[in-house]
């Protein structure tokens, strides 16, 4: 207790602002769950979301987004400058910043992190690919680093604001030795690794040397319960405090009075959830016609599908951007479900029932039929496909459903060998549509596998990439969004929401624009009996 008071005193003297939490709010253990054990906690070569969740509490980046305003804020960097041409970004490190072993965070650590990411012998290709257009990262002085980019790109600032690892801890002679690090975690964040018991749990403990406002909660423990059902039962039995649940569990649990009494039920949109869509192969003659694609969208009753298949947990989307971002144009309304409008558009495009057999034909007498492909194994996909098949049959469109193993499916995408696909993209706070929509990404197994080719779209995408002014860039993206809405290369379906149950033991839980932020949470002293042990 005395030690706690002392550390609080130290914290309050180090900062002009008052401590965020009162002494009685400090302490406690937060108990969460991972559906799988992380493969490795290596700060750069990690492979799963679980490692990223751990890193979020152990490491810090130069800058990060404010969870409410979404603006960038300095974390390790006290401030930063972007040159007039946008190619040079200079970060000034906070002189107070310390790693958990007490060593100051310096420019050498930032340069070391960058060079390790870029080292071809280090298995960090997925991070390194963001730096393809980066010329380098150099130390100006102990507290100043400079990133230089070959091209102007609005994402350069975000990308440059890397998570920093200490050079004196991770320095290596043999890259293999670095790749194999799996449980050495030393960062400047508020927590450090307590213990990792394979098959049991992973525990983080408070970093007593933390250089900023200390978090309220002493320890964070994640168990490794692999079965969804077992994890939900552990939550109900009071062994977990915080659990993300699937929609099926949400609709089962939230009406229960005992659950309502004991848990905070949180439902929110997060950018990472991305969106689901039906992609029409624009290179196939059938779907090369905008009117046909638009007609297809008019035949997909998105609101009803969302309501009956996803329990209305999500929102219909009209474009590729996150609906809470500046990129998304809220004035664009989804095309309504309308058979008449669809038939009118199809007739205009030359498709009508000419032979009287109930199917639509074109002038050459060819029937309107196509293959709808997706990955097998997901019951939701199967249900949607069946409903669409039925709906299309009513207007005379013959849709065949083909569900493939994921690995076969990706080969079909790479070869543009499909008529229509149902898939999802994950998202970010601010997306760059280049990878998915630019015509240069059609060839060589790029992500524009539906072959969307539109000179105006290309121009807007390229212009936005070099526009550093956020407001001007958003205006360009609104035009791009509207163009996609008119062209309907995809039928955009919906964005799903995140669902979490958090025990009433945990206080201060707030939903921000970006979702939940563990920095807000506090528990206070663990109750004497059993509460500390999961």
């Amino acid at each position: 207790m005395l030690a706690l008071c002392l550390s609080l005193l130290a914290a309050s003297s180090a900062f002009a602002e008052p401590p965020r939490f009162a002494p009685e709010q400090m302490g406690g253990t937060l108990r969460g769950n991972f559906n799988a054990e992380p493969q490795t906690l290596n700060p750069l070569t990690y492979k799963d979301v679980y490692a990223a969740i751990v890193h979020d509490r152990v490491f810090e980046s130069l800058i990060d987004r404010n969870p409410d305003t979404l603006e960038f804020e300095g974390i390790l960097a006290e401030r930063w400058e972007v040159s007039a041409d946008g190619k040079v970004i200079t970060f000034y490190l906070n002189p107070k910043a310390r790693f958990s072993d007490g060593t100051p965070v310096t420019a050498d650590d930032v340069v070391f992190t960058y060079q390790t990411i870029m080292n071809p012998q280090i298995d960090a290709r997925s991070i390194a690919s963001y730096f393809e257009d980066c010329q380098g990262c150099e130390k100006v002085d102990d507290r100043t680093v400079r990133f230089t980019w070959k091209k102007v790109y609005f994402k350069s600032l975000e990308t440059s604001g890397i998570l920093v690892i200490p050079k004196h801890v991770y320095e290596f002679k043999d890259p293999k030795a670095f790749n194999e690090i799996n449980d050495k975690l030393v960062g400047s964040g508020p927590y450090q690794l307590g213990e990792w018991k394979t098959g049991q749990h992973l525990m983080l403990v408070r970093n007593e040397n933390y250089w900023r406002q200390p978090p309220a909660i002493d320890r964070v423990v994640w168990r490794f319960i692999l079965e969804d059902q077992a994890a939900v039962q552990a939550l109900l039995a009071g062994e977990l405090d915080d659990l993300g649940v699937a929609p099926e569990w949400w609709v089962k649990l939230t009406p229960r009075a005992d659950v309502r009494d004991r848990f905070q039920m949180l439902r929110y949109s997060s950018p990472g959830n991305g969106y689901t869509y039906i992609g029409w192969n624009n290179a196939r003659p059938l779907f090369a016609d905008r009117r046909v694609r638009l007609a297809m969208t008019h035949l997909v009753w998105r609101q009803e599908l969302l309501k009956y298949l996803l329990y209305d947990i999500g929102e219909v989307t009209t474009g590729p951007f996150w609906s809470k971002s500046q990129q998304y144009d809220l004035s664009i309304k989804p095309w309504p479900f309308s058979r008449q409008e669809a038939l009118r558009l199809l007739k205009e495009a030359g498709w009508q029932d000419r032979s009287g057999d109930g199917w639509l034909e074109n002038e050459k007498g060819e029937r309107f039929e196509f293959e709808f492909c997706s990955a097998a194994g997901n019951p939701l996909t199967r249900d949607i496909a069946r409903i669409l098949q039925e709906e299309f049959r009513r207007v005379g469109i013959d849709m065949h459903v083909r569900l493939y193993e994921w690995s076969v499916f990706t080969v079909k995408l790479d070869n543009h060998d499909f008529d229509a696909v149902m898939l999802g993209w994950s998202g970010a706070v601010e997306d760059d549509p280049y990878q998915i929509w630019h015509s240069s990404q059609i060839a060589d197994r790029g992500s524009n596998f539906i072959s969307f080719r539109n000179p105006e779209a290309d121009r807007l995408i390229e212009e936005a990439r070099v526009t550093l002014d956020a407001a001007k860039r958003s205006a360009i993206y609104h035009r791009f969004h509207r163009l996609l809405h008119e062209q309907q290369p995809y039928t955009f379906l919906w964005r799903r929401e995140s669902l979490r149950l958090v025990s009433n033991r945990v206080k201060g839980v707030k939903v921000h624009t970006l979702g939940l932020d563990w920095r807000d949470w506090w528990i206070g002293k663990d109750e004497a009996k059993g509460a500390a042990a999961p």
Partner: protein
Amino acid sequence: MKTYILKRLLLMIPTIVGITLLTYLIVRLAPGDPIEAMIRNQSGNIDPKAMKEDAQKIRERLGLIDYHYVRDRFFGAPSEEERPQPTGASYKVTDALDTVASAGIGYGRWVGHLATGDFGESIKYRTSSGSRNPLALIAERIPVTATLNIIAELLIFFIAIPVGLAAARHQGKWFDRASSFVMLAFWSVPTVLAGTVLLGFLGKGGLGWSGFPIAGLHSFGYEKFSWGEYLADTLWHSVLPVVCLTYGGIAYLAKLGRASLLENLRADYVRTARAKGLPESRVVYHHALRNSLLPMITVMVLTLPGLIGGSVIVETIFSIQGTGLLLVNAAQAYDLALIMTETLLYGVLTLVFLLIGDLLYAWADPRVRYE
């Protein structure tokens, strides 16, 4: 006898080759590219060019060098246009042959490494100490799986045999009918269903009695427990998993025991014993039981490999870090070295148990002779 054992051991070799070759081919010939799928799963939307290079690096590390690579080394590389591209829909016969050839070469390399005692490296599990040997990974997890299976096997023996005997002694009576019904039901319920139902009704936070732990084999902070507490805690955690591993075996062995005892009770020597005026209990427990236990012991030994298979399901449902879960994780990660090592181990184990079963049978019944 020695010749027989030697013969059996030699026969194991082609069987093992068959098992491993089949496993290898299934993993390698699965459609798509497992290595690229793995990279895609790890890092989301990765640039295809980077992915190709990464995939090649991993292949080299794993010895999954493809047929093209080998052909190029020996016959010179064809130009880009000549080189067939591995494409899904337009898969040509030559491509398919190439794939099979690649798999064959890969399998040959794996056997070659094995001959030098090299089991390869697990790509999923890495540790700072550099220990990535699949054997070490499996060895770490054997105690857990073995403990559960030994408890299960003992329970099967001590429950199934009395039940089978009682059913045989009271043939056609209510106990026989009731136990037959229950055993048939047990035999018919798949482990996945039993595990989920037990978890949902008897596990903590469940719908029913909800007292049993639901994941893992230890409570939090078990390191600080005394010996007695540790043992009690582990046994308590093992109840549901062991029940899942046990009920199928009980059903099988009880039915077998019943049939076996009935056969013996009808035998001439039993009639003789009864005719001599021996008390019924002595006839049953001394004469008939001893003879009917023989086949059951061998069957017991043969059920062991089956239990190991059951561990794959049970360990997944109850989040227990044993060899079964390790195999599931390896398969999901296309961790070829680990899959192959574990399959090899299971294969050898099964064959060894088969041999022991046969030897035990002959030892117990002098009428059986090795030829």
